[in-house]
């Protein structure tokens, strides 16, 4: 049975079981939140979402209070606004004034709310925490407990989404501390470095370590793509700055995975900029015309690439077939393509299609694989094409 209520004088129909927050947001009425995330169970911890409900004696937390038939809600009552300001002021009394250098500047829910509610920095606050910054050697996850607002989103993300139960709160009151396992290092507490907790943290308390200092949200361009590791097909956003991928961020609307990614998808992208990437076509000297080779090498257009291939991580020569004729020469594309096409044409004429075999790639796109297959069948005249599906 749908429920009828009024929020900020707007009559609203909400599905049974909806919270006030869900009813409001579904109708474009904003209510601020901090500990709430639509993927996670509501805990009503931060009191940022308080609203006035006619007839109720106290303010209600919109994220945990079900919408009721005939309810009249005011999201911006003076009392609610004052309470939110107080909540924010309290948070700031134990938060470093670090937005200038903070990784998540511009992408921080606390910062946005402090701005929205015109809260000022409390100059003469009492005791502030001085937790050790970055205490965990996990190479992916940076922890700064001084910025933690104890919203428990990371705890719930790890527990409900990742089902690893790594995080929890230890101690009480001012001493409350976010801990991994029994106050252990992440990896010892069963963490699999998926980065979900980082993705759900509303502030700069948990940060993607590899991306620190490389670019904040206003400096990057996000490009939606599909992961190139396994067949799950997770989607995510590549964060690009100055022609480099500096971070991978979850895309809430990713059809397969939502916010979830694994350690490879989220943190395994840096190989694309590795110095060992191949950057020039390489052809063994024996396939190049000797005179042209000498001239181009002399002019610097081509170069001997044996050193380069060693640097590229190859072990050229380790198989005992290194002779001057076997040296790799780094050449231009036209030369390399002509060598391949020329040799293919010659072998095709002499031995027919059976002389060829093609290994296509499970890493390449559909369009590329379609063309590899067309190339093999139409031009090389063989069906000998396969890839590592079986391996």
């Amino acid at each position: 049975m749908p429920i009828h209520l009024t929020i900020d004088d707007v009559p609203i129909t909400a599905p049974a079981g909806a919270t006030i927050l869900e009813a409001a947001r579904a109708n474009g009425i904003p209510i601020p939140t901090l500990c709430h995330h639509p993927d996670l169970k509501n805990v009503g911890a931060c009191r940022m979402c308080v609203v006035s409900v006619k007839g109720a004696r106290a303010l209600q937390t919109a994220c945990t209070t079900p919408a009721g038939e005939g309810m009249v809600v005011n999201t911006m009552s003076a009392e609610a606004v004052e309470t939110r300001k107080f909540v924010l002021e309290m948070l700031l009394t134990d938060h470093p004034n670090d937005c200038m250098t903070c990784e998540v500047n511009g992408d921080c829910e606390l910062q946005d709310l402090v701005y929205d509610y015109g809260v000022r920095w409390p100059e003469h606050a009492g005791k502030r925490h001085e937790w050790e910054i970055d205490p965990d050697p996990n190479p992916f996850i940076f922890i700064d407990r001084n910025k933690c607002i104890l919203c428990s989103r990371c705890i719930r993300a790890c527990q409900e989404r990742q089902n690893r139960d790594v995080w929890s709160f230890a101690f009480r009151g001012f001493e409350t501390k976010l801990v991994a396992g029994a106050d252990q290092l992440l990896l010892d507490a069963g963490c699999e470095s998926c980065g979900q907790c980082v993705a759900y943290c509303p502030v700069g308390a948990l940060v993607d370590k590899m991306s620190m200092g490389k670019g904040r949200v206003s400096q990057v361009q996000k490009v939606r793509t599909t992961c190139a590791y396994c067949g799950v097909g997770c989607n995510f956003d590549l964060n690009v700055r100055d022609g480099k991928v500096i971070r991978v961020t979850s895309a809430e609307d990713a059809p397969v995975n939502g916010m979830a990614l694994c350690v490879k998808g989220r943190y395994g992208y840096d190989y694309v900029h590795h110095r060992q990437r191949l950057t020039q076509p390489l052809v063994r000297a024996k396939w190049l015309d000797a005179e042209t080779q000498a001239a181009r090498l002399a002019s610097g257009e081509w170069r001997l690439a044996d050193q380069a291939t060693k640097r590229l991580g190859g072990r050229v020569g380790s198989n005992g077939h290194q002779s001057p004729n076997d040296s790799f020469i780094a050449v231009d594309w036209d030369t390399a393509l002509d060598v391949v096409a020329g040799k293919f044409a010659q072998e095709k004429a002499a031995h027919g299609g059976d002389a060829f075999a093609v290994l296509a790639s499970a890493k390449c796109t559909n369009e590329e694989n379609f063309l590899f297959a067309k190339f093999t069948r139409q031009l090389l005249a063989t069906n000998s094409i396969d890839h590592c599906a079986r391996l």
Partner: protein
Amino acid sequence: MTNSIRDIAEQSQCIFIIGSNTTEQHPVIGTKIRRAKRQRGAKLIVADPRRIDIADYADLHLQHKPGTDLALLNGLMHIILRQGWEDADFIAERTEGIEELRTLVAKYTPEVASAITGVPAADLEQAARMLAENRPGSLLYAMGITQHTVGVPNVMACANLQMLLGNMGVAGGGVNPLRGQNNVQGACDMGGLPNVYSGYQRVTDPAIQAKFEAAWGVGLSPRAGLTVTEMVHAAETGQVRCLYIIGENPMTSDPDLNHVREALQKTEFIVVQEIFFSETAQFADVVLPAASFVETEGTFTNTERRIQRVRKAVASPGEAKPDLWIIDELAKRLIDLKVVEIDPDAPWADWNYAGPSDVMEEINALTPIYAGATWQRLEAGAQLQWPVPDEWHPGTPILHVGKFSRGKGRFVASDHVSPAELPDAEYPLMLTTGRVLYHWHGGEMTHRARNLAAMYPDALVEIHPKDAAKAHIGPGELLKVSSRRGEILAKAEITDRVEPGLIFTTFHFAESAANFLTNPALDPEAKIPEFKVCAVKVEKVG
């Protein structure tokens, strides 16, 4: 997969994982299964020779010996039939061959199945009951089922079980192979296989051959080509003279690497198209620098047949080029060199593709299962799982609803056959292979992802404390593992994740790749090598 990740995660009452280390190889599916188990109480059964991570979450872990999947599955079906738990209506309406199955599994009593698999009979009884009482249930498998000489019978046994339970064509059911590489599904769909054109249209079917001849304006071969493993043999005998290897690294991923090395050394001309100088590139005559996925536009198809966009975010380093550009340039040159007679009037004879949308148009035209997956729809964000027979079709999240594609589902029952090579006096241990969370395949990418490499820097061999003690091996000590085909050095990880008599290692590390050891014995039909079982011995080094 016959079903979608989502309906399995949200609607399966029982999830049966066999031969898939889901947490480490398909991590996000692993988290969804854990969530199904813990947040909504789905049952979870894991059958695996090792105590893999997901087994810790399971209601029941069946730790069967490697290479005994058929005996295990037949044993479960025996119990289901004995108890009358089969879905009689489904079987009568939608299947054939039940009598054959009944006869075959009759001899796999719990005692017999238990003797072969090493799984206690009581656990088999409990698993069968759990499967029967919690429907719909889905079955998930990966290379642990296929990489055996009985890979094809194993897959059929999975299908038999699910048909028996009536778990086909329903949300939360299905037979769901988890595909390894990101686009292995797409590479198969696009005809990167020796026996089919795109969309699994057989090269040996004359009507299909005529269709592609008309489209591409050339005569086409009516004979199936060589598979990867056959290519290696043909290269060795000199029948294959030119190898064109694109983004693959047979020097780590194929079985019996010493043999692969000899074959590559003998080959007349090898072209390798890659993003890194791979182990295979050492044997190349020409190495062409390709673009990585962040430099490429196109589509990938995931394990649940979902076609998704890949987008270019940055420029390629140096002169590296997209594979699409490279193959197009080569094709145009071969056409200029007149390697074949092409009818210029054929509708798709031409090359000169400006980009992936041009290619997708041709895929749509020639591939019925992709016919409606147009570039425009994909770009607009349409979520399409093939088959997508036309432009208005919403895609097919679940296969075999109401009817199997071949009409009636056929039970094809097979007996247990031992792996091709079993431990003996000389090679007393069994080796099984796989992957770990932090690495991928031959490690070409993950070894160059700084922190992934840091998380798992060395090749490890998992060995049970008892076997380690016998060989006087301490934790982290270097050991030599040898088989009839080769040897590797790796560090010992002493753990009861493996049973006594079984060791485990990966093929992520070129120098200590398990594939120096593995047995190239093939499944006769699928031509998949038996990576999951071979006989080895271990010795302490130094």
